[in-house]
């Protein structure tokens, strides 16, 4: 796979919260480059800044300092309206608690990102069919979220993230609310999507099993990048062991487990 093209390039990202006198810096100057077709996992203890980093990169939140390029666009300079349009056209999102709309069926939920009618109905229909096929939720098209299982909801959410052929998909603890079987099945599917369709994915997780599906794992500690691991040709099992080691040094999991 061609890994020379940069999809995301973040430079010196800083983010602080709070008012004058009581400022808390959550991200303390992060540099990160993501290549096309990568499946990047972000790990770290609670409070390390994982979700903040994801939100900032995903244009949901703004940085205090630093620049972020996605494709050719500098999103740190965009206005709110432009950011919205950018998110809608270029990015996909998977959330821990699915964030499906209760009042819409599975298919309607999946088609939401293209619901402003910029994509032709026939194209959207084809796109829906192929994605629903990959994610194995074709039969659920007319069901409402309350009628399906958590794993199926997350697949729906994943399908929604993929429908507009995004440059990049952001996933925030996608397996956090799933049982281990549904979780591994979903991760396997994400891995397939990543490998076969070349979709770039960035996933925040605190679960070493989940991150063992990634091609690269970035460890955060106190708002800085602590280390990175590449899977390379290693088996998932071996990669998992390596992740565990780093996590042991970080000592984060014990905090998370509480």
């Amino acid at each position, binding site marked *: 796979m061609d890994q020379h093209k940069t999809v995301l390039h973040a430079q010196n990202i800083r983010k602080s919260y709070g008012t004058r006198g009581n400022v808390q810096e959550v991200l303390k100057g992060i540099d990160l480059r993501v290549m096309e077709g990568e499946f990047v996992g972000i790990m770290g203890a609670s409070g390390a800044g994982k979700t903040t980093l994801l939100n900032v990169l995903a244009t949901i939140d703004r940085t205090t300092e630093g620049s972020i390029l996605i494709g050719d666009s500098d999103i740190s300079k965009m206005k709110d309206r432009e950011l919205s349009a950018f998110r809608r056209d270029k990015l996909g999102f998977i959330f821990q608690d699915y*964030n499906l709309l209760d009042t819409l069926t599975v298919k309607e939920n999946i088609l939401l990102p293209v619901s402003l009618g910029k994509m032709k109905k026939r194209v959207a229909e084809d796109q829906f069919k192929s994605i629903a096929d990959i994610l194995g939720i074709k039969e659920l098209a007319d069901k409402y979220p309350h009628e399906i299982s958590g794993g199926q909801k997350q697949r729906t959410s994943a399908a929604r993230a993929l429908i507009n052929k995004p440059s990049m998909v952001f996933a925030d603890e996608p397996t956090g609310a799933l049982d281990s079987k549904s979780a591994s099945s979903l991760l396997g599917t994400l891995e397939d999507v990543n490998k076969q369709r070349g979709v770039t994915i960035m996933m925040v997780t605190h679960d070493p099993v989940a991150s063992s599906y990634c091609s690269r794992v970035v460890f955060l500690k106190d708002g800085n990048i602590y280390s990175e691991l590449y899977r390379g040709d290693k088996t998932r099992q071996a990669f998992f062991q390596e992740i565990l080691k780093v996590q042991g040094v970080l000592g984060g999991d014990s905090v998370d487990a509480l």
Partner: protein
Amino acid sequence: MFSGVTALTLFDLVIRSMRKNIKHYYLYFFALIFSVVLYFVFATLQHDPSVIARSGGSMGSAFKAAGILLLFIAGIFVVYANAIFLKRRSREIGLYQLIGLTKGAVARLLIIENTLLSAGALAIGIGVGILVSRLFLLLLMKLVGFDGFIEMTFSTEAVVQTVFVFLAIIVLTSIQMVVAVYRNTLLGLFNADKTGEHPKKPKAFMSGILAIIGMALIAFGYWLSGRMLNELLFVNMLVVLASTILGTYLLFRVTISWLFYQIRKRKQGHLGLYNSLSLAPIMHRMKGNANSLTIITVLSAMTLAMLAGAYSLYYSTEKETRLIYPVDFLFIPTGGSTGEAEAKQFTDELQRQDIAYQYSPIETLQLDGEFEENSVNKLLNSRFWVSVVNEKQLQEAGVDIEIPDAQSAYYYGASTYWLMKSTEVPVNFKLYAPHDGLDISIVKIGEGNVLNPPSGGSQLVVKEELYEEIKEFSSDETIDSQIMMAYGVNLKDKKDLVKASDIFMEMTDNNRARFDYYSNYLASMQSNGLLIFISGFLGLVFLVSTGSILYFKQMTEAEQERSSYATLRQLGFTVQDIMGGIVRKQMFVFGVPLLIGLLHSIFAMKAASFIFMSDITLPASIAMGIYALIYLVFAFLTVGYYRKTVKAAL
């Protein structure tokens, strides 16, 4: 740890929770204040000495009846607002129990809160009421046509009555709160804001049938409302009411869901953002909202019809009175006098005061007659008494009527006009003399009377030749009473009416019925002014209640859907995109009850238009337009609330 809660700590808790929850409270608080103000104003007017003095009792009873209605509306409104308020706070109520407060303690806490809140609302409401009641009194007096100085007195009775009524309402809402605490499980309380049904696939066949029945019932109600004027008038009215209300319910409960389901099915998942934010959530909540939408629609229809009717009456008072009393002053034989002497006395006085007038004696023939069978409304199918009037004499009296030929007649009669309105002319009429009959062709049905009551009744205006013929034909009998004289006095300048009326009132006996235009106009003005005031007042209450209930409900829905808006904004939809869908939803939520209510009331007004001789399209449209405008204010407020929610969602 809370087992030893004392009244003081509970009270502290109350104060703390009230301070923290101010945004939940203000809605309920305003509903309470609003109800108190309106009730107090009404009570004040009911006990106001100048109102009582002006009306001599007639206004009092009207106010009393309206007061009871107002009480009902205010009660229902407050209870409803309280129910919404409680539902919004159910998580908080659950939390109190979770930390160990007993149900009894939570109930006590809520009751203390409720009492404090209601007492505050009562005090503020009465204060505001005292300020605005003078305004309302002035309005009322202006409407009934009283220009004098009005003194406003502070009414202790009104305060006592208001306090008493709202104490009862506090008891009622407290019971409601206790029930809410005791009957709900903890889990239920925590999930209360998540409840919403899930749309099921309607059973295609049954829903289809019911959907069509709903529309058919409304259509039938409309159809029948135009054909009610027969022996079964009362039954017809009930059938129209029942079929329209049931039809409206089915419309909301089945027809709309069914239609939406069909639309949605056709979209095959490609719903689009706007439909996702309007059609889908509406379908989602249709079952729960059907009742309130039906009630709001029916209430709106009734209010609209009431307002349009009352305003039309008020608006057409002058015209209608003129149609009944075409002659300014009419003297007829009474008791000992022939009327001629009185007329002379009156005109002498007019002359003395330099008031220009026209005096015209009019002779009428009193006869029995009958319409040709089945040519007019069934209710007129019997022998009745008519006055035959000479066209020439009317022309001399200033009534501009010209009969085309000597064989035909014009029919007038204010009391029967509503039945005759739709009669197709020419229609044959048979006049009876004791021995013989004479056929006359009626070629036109005129509006109102040509002579004031009681000479009126039904009047046939004929050419002089025919008049003489009828006179001869009926006069072989020696009964004089068949010929009656009336003496009309018309003022040349209608501006003199007030002055002339004073003269007339002074010389005529107070115990006698008066058949002049002006005093009857004043009397109608007074009763119609009172009617428009009371219905306007009640209408405003209805309107604000229905509008607020919709607003409250939508507020709750907005909060329930907040997470959806957050998701949509994360997915990259702008506030404007989302608002586009929400505005559509509000157009439905507010627009459909308004439109159906308007349609209902238009048909109701059409059915009721027989009361009027003049055209009421204009006044009815004005009343409906004003109603719709005020109602739409609530829609704008709601959209504003949604905008705030969507903006804050991310």
